[in-house]
C-alpha cells in the first residue's frame, strides 16, 4: 500500500477534498473488513463495523501523527472501534466449554474434518476473554508481527507477548482434543 499516497490523500482530506477520503477507503476497505470479521465472525456485521471505523478515522484524521505509518494509525483506530463495538454487542459465539462439548459430539458422530477443526479453533479464540482474544486476533492478522500488533492495541510489546502466551495456554487447556500436543513456546 502506498505510504505516500496515504499521506497525500490525508492532506487533501484535511484541506476539504472528500474525494481523497474515498481513495483511502478504497485502499483500506479489504484489510479493515477482514480485521472486523476476525473480531465478530459475521460477514454482514464486519462491514458495519468497518464503516464505523472509517467514520472514526475521518473524524480523528487530524490526530494522526506523521511519525507513524498511516496504516498503523488506521489499524489502531479500527481496533479500538471494534473492541468498543464488541463490548456493546458481544459476538455471537458460544462459551469455550460449550464449544468443546459440541466438538466432541460432532467428532464422535461424523469425525472432524480439517475445516471444522480450523473453524472450531477460530471460534475458540473468539470465545476467549477480550484481552487475550484481541492479542491473538491482532497477532495473526498482522502475520505474527508482535510490533504491529502492539501498535494496533496501543500496548507495550511485552504485554502483548504475555497475553499471547496466556491466551494460547487457555486454548491449550480448553481444547485438548485439538491442541493436545501444543507446546507453549516463547513467542518470538
Amino acid at each position, binding site marked *: 500500500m502506498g505510504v505516500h499516497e496515504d499521506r497525500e490523500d490525508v492532506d487533501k482530506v484535511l484541506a476539504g477534498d472528500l474525494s481523497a477520503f474515498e481513495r483511502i*477507503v478504497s485502499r483500506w*476497505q479489504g484489510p479493515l473488513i477482514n480485521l472486523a470479521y476476525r473480531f465478530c465472525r459475521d460477514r454482514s456485521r464486519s*462491514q458495519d463495523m468497518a464503516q464505523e471505523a472509517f467514520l472514526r478515522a475521518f473524524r480523528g484524521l487530524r490526530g494522526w501523527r506523521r511519525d507513524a505509518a498511516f496504516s498503523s494509525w488506521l489499524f489502531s483506530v479500527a481496533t479500538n472501534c471494534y473492541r468498543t463495538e464488541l463490548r456493546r454487542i458481544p459476538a455471537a459465539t458460544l462459551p469455550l466449554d460449550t464449544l468443546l462439548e459440541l466438538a466432541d459430539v460432532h467428532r464422535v458422530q461424523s469425525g472432524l474434518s480439517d475445516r471444522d477443526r*480450523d473453524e472450531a479453533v477460530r471460534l475458540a479464540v473468539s470465545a476467549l476473554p477480550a484481552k487475550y482474544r484481541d492479542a491473538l486476533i491482532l497477532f495473526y492478522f498482522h*502475520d505474527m508481527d508482535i510490533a504491529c500488533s502492539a501498535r494496533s492495541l496501543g500496548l507495550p510489546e511485552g504485554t502483548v507477548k504475555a497475553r499471547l502466551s496466556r491466551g494460547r495456554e487457555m486454548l491449550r487447556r480448553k481444547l485438548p482434543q485439538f*491442541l*493436545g500436543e*501444543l*507446546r*507453549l513456546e516463547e513467542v518470538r
Partner: protein
Amino acid sequence: MNLHEFDRILTREAEIEPSPGFVHSVMTAVRNEAAVPPRIRFPWLCLLPQLAVWCIAVVWVVIDSVHLPSHAPVISSRVGEWGEALATILMRAEGFGAGWVLLALVSTLLCLKLRWRISGWFG
C-alpha cells in the same frame, strides 16, 4: 496438532471481499458527517469561576472552624482532637445551611451528568 499448525490455522483465514457498495456507503456516511456543524464544546471556562468560588468557600469554612476559640473540654488524644475539629466544622457548616448548599451542588452535578449523557458528550 503442534504450535505451527495452530499458527497456520489462525494466520490463514479466508479473505472476505467487500461488498460492491461498501465504499459508496462509507462515503455517504462521511459526507453526512462532514455536513453536520462541529459539536459545541462544553463551556469549561464559564464553569471555572464557579468552581473557584466553591473551593474558596470550602477552604474558608475549614480555616475559620479550625481557628475558633476552643471552649470544649481539651481531649488529649489525637483522634479526639480531629473528631472535635470535624464536629466544629460540621456545626459551623450547619449554621449557614451547608446541607442545602451540598444538595444544590449534588443536583447541579446530576444535571450536568444528565446533560452530558443526553448530548452524547462521552459517547
